[in-house]
């Protein structure tokens, strides 16, 4: 158990270090001069030098990386060029909105995916199955930057049920969460279907049926429960895609989260903020997956005894 935890943590630390380096490289891999890109060609040489110095770009790359890493240790992510505020402060303002959106989107995804996948598995090969999987295929294929505007058109502009954009109360959360949750729901539904099909072939399901449980009880108590574990792992793995999608969804709905901040920072050429946002989103993804792995190892002895994969 301890071995498993240690190896998981060490590889996570390596990944975090790697992600930090990758994000750090972002600004250094730009062809040309990042300072010129940020300030434009007409900037005065003195201003350029000042920015170059404040970003530490006048020092050797390795020294810069060292400074960046040691800054991270103390949660010092640098200063925003546009807002002239510490980036950690900016992020602190934005994180709750993104966390809220991500959580509700996951709930939406689960609420859609479980019934859809269960119906498809139980009625395998019938029209129910084909319809459910058709919806799932459609859900994967609809990009959120098209679905979002369409939902706004129908439910905000025509029907007037929800606000068009912004963050004012629970109602404003509904459309972004549906937009973001649908794609995940589509992938989850397929997973629920395939794991449930596997589970339903197990001996204990036959036993449950033999002892006279109704089919609904068999599915709910023995089938879905056992199908839950791989599905929850998939939710953890899909979180990255979800957070990536949040960048676009937040832009569509003017949702004041980290994603919108990322895009604003790109448009304003505020690269230290872009770095910090990419880093934050990636780190939260890594941390969540390490936590799910650890929780599973605690819950399910098959995982830790099998020494992982």
């Amino acid at each position, binding site marked *: 158990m301890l071995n498993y935890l240690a190896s998981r943590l060490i590889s996570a630390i390596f990944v*975090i270090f790697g992600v930090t380096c990758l994000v750090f490289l972002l600004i250094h891999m730009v062809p040309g001069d990042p300072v010129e890109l940020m300030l434009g060609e007409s900037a005065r040489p003195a201003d350029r030098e000042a920015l170059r110095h404040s970003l530490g770009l006048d020092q050797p790359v390795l020294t810069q990386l060292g400074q960046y890493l040691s800054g991270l240790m103390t949660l010092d992510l640098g200063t925003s060029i546009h807002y002239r505020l510490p980036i950690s402060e900016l992020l602190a303002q934005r994180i709750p909105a993104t966390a809220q959106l991500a959580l509700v989107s996951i709930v939406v995804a689960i609420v859609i995916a479980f019934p859809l996948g269960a119906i498809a598995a139980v009625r395998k090969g019938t029209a129910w199955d084909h319809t459910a999987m058709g919806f799932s*295929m459609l859900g994967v294929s609809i990009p959120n*930057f098209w679905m979002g*505007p369409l939902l706004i058109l129908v439910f905000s502009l025509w029907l007037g049920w929800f606000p068009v954009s912004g963050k004012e109360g629970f109602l404003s959360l509904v459309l972004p969460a549906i937009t973001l949750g649908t794609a995940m729901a589509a992938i989850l539904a397929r997973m629920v279907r395939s794991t449930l099909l596997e589970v339903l072939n197990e001996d204990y399901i036959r036993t449950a049926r033999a002892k006279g449980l109704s089919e609904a009880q068999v599915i709910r108590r023995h089938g879905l429960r056992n199908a839950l574990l791989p599905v929850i792992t998939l939710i953890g793995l899909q979180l990255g895609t979800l957070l990536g999608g949040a*960048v*676009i969804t937040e832009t569509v709905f003017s949702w004041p989260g980290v994603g919108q901040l990322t895009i604003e920072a*790109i448009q304003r050429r505020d690269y230290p903020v*872009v770095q910090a946002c*990419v880093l934050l989103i990636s780190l939260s993804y890594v941390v969540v997956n390490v936590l799910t792995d650890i929780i599973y190892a605690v819950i399910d002895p098959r995982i830790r005894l099998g020494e992982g994969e």
Partner: protein
Amino acid sequence: MIGKYFPAFIVCLWAVFALFGSFMGLSPDAIDLSKILHGPDMHSLLGYDDLGRPILDRLIMGAQTSFIVALWVTLISLCIGTFIGAASAYFGGWLDLFVVRIIDVFLAVPGILLAIAFAGIMGPGIENVVIALSIVGWVGFARLARAQVMALKHRDHVQAAVSLGTSSLVIIRRHLLPLISAPLIVEATFSIAGVVIAEAGLSFLGLGVQPPAASWGSMIRDGTAYMLVAPHMVISPGVAMILIVLSVNLLGDRLRDVLDVRGRKR
């Protein structure tokens, strides 16, 4: 019967429009001020946009953008990813450890986010879109190629080639690549669908091709401002994109069945 050939038909249509769109006498940039935001008519079946340009013509030019980007990104990612993954698995040792770590790092960053950041920092333009999406795209192929070569490299015919003194490069190319091509082709198909959406996503954010060039993503973005008066501006590029993505995904599913490749994720 129709359903069976529909995806292939749509994908062929996409390819034809992309390859021959320039010779169809289209006028995607022709501005007709009297037609601003007009709905469909005899001259343009899909109506006009906010500058009075025919949406059908722009849709076809957008097909060209998405086709070129999807093809290039998939080709580049396939070549680089397969090479890195196969070499890593074949040679093993420190190289493999290193490559696995790099793959882990790339998998930890949401792909579209990394592409957005790269495209944003490199600046807009179709070449930069291709580069940004390839930086993200190679990882999936590398992981797949690595896993496949791992499973195959101890087979007898490979060992025989090694003992005959065949060079590693030839072994990988002649004795391993042909065996792992089926899953890679399936993965490439799904990659095309993913890249179509990603390219449109970047263009939607203003990081893709620049005006007046057309992309389905930028068409959707332009349309959102006029949704109430001219919903056709948003609807047609979206429907076109979904048809393509859906068709490519369906073809990928079928290809997987035909080539008998097990599920992508087990």
